[in-house]
């Protein structure tokens, strides 16, 4: 799990161009200024590319925080 958080953090920092971003499982879009609805689309695409996975439409709609995003990735990678 900690690995995923670290990878997510690196990715978020790079995509959102802010090196001060620190992620926890509870982090939501409200906690990060750059994480607006447009950048959310960008983040999802880059997460998919990075982990070589594809999220389903309903998964994307259900996430409440970073932890749940990581759960989606984990479920696909660990299978």
């Amino acid at each position: 799990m900690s690995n995923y958080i670290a990878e997510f953090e690196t990715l978020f920092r790079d995509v959102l161009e802010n090196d001060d971003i620190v992620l926890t499982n509870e982090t939501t879009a409200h906690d990060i200024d750059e994480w607006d609805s447009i950048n959310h689309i960008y983040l999802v695409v880059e997460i998919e590319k990075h982990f070589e996975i594809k999220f389903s439409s309903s998964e994307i709609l259900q996430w409440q925080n970073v932890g749940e995003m990581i759960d989606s990735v984990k479920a696909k990678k660990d299978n």
Partner: protein
Amino acid sequence: MNPIFSFRELQKKAKNTTGNVTDIRVAVLGNHTTSFFVKALENQLKVAGFNPSMFESDYDQIDITLIDGESELYKFNPEIIVVFESVIKLKDKFYSIKDTESQSDFYKTEKDIIQNRVSNIRANGSDAKIVYFSYELIDDELYGNLFSKIPHSFYNNLWQLNNELITFSRNEPDFYVFDINKYLKGTENYRDYTALINSDLHYSIDTFAKISHFLAQFFNAFKGHFKKCLILDLDNTTWGGIIGDDGLENIQVGSLGIGKAFTKLQKWAKELKERGVILAICSKNTEEVAKEPFEKHNEMVLRLDDISIFVANWKNKADNIRYIQEVLNIGFDSMVFLDDNPAERDIVRQSLPAVTVPELPKDPAYYMPYIESLNLFETVSYSENDKDRTSQYQQEAKRKKLISSVTNMDDYLKSLEMKGNISPFNSDDVSRVAQLTQRSNQFNLRTQRYTEKDITEFMNSENHLTYTVKLKDKFGDYGLISVIILEKKNDNTYFVDTWIMSCRVLKRDVEHFALNKIVEDVKNKGINIITGEYLPTPKNKLVADLLTKLTFKNNDKEDSYLLDLTNYKSLKNYIENE
């Protein structure tokens, strides 16, 4: 030449660009989420060396934005307006039509909307270039391959609509069609259907990056940057094999071996030459041996008279390209060099980074597909005159020979037997005049770019004096080589708005010939002052002292120039007025 970056790579590249000075103002209007497209285009323009300002219309508000003369769009004052409509949205609109008759007329209704949009842009005083995306050809598969027979099928309408767009563009000034279909072809996963449903993202963000790559190339051409010369290596580039070793009978071109691949390249080069691109040869060979296939091989498409400059020797290729550049007098950034040898490519890239040197694939079968994918010869103008360029440069080579046989410049100029014609703009020359204002970078006093519409306005203006200069000599006809526009500033002053000349006629005293006539005309209007200024760009140092040479007095304080006609002494030249 930049590769096609992903959205994220592009974002990083753009961040590292600094010192861009050329402004470009672009507005984007769409019926879908265009934020990523606008961002990608902005980044591409930065990477291409521009300093872009972008305007994005509100989501799906194309018509309201265009109708409202007070809208932010017109305040933004764009140079280029891009209209990018997604066919997926259009399909919803189409399905809301209930009767088949109206469905059959759908493309006509849409065409009227497009024309209306253009009228609104012009009525609201914008002379921006309009770049209209063609419609993505996607079938809803309701009628399958019967679509061509069903006028009320969606797919049928899309084909018709694209045809209407092309027909409309042909006669509509400053309206261009950007075909999205050719860039989507071969793009993997160009649409992300999850993002389409969740975020109204009609193309994937990397597709936006790719499309904007080609759009930025097109804009580059608008700004006067395009390729004017193709330089070809010979052995294993223009034909297969090595002429010096294999001999005339064994080189592969036409039917022999993989000759077809080389024939395709030659045919393409020949068509480019017909379009006005200059062809040059740069080969490590003995000249007579290298020329033999052009003269004697009956399957060669290219012949010696297609080539403006033929350089075959054993010198460094970078030096030879420098020589070609000197003779042609064009920028290195307008040259493309094709060579199969990676080492030669590397030498040229290192010494002349501005020259475009494509990384030719190893297999000649892939030469043409690869070269075509680069879209190297983007252009925004074409005139019949372009076809004559090759013979013009061949004439130039003869003049270069003559100049070496005379001992002073006056004798040389006299021996050319030049005849000049200077007259106001006329309607036959509008496209050539506009083209010169678009293309000329070096001998260009103020680098004002004008459209055909602008030129027509100058032609009919009471406030302007317009001139074209045509020149011939005993070797041939240069055609229209200079454009000058003067604007009346007050009762006693004309201002030099534009002074452009083709570099092919440098040092012929054409500018003396022209100014003598201009002074005569201005005096006849009872006006005694002509003022001027020099606007420096990275490319027009050539004319930094033009006004001084033309006996204008420099006013140091304001960096402006003034010519008092009461003391004007006719300037020397050997051009006979005809």
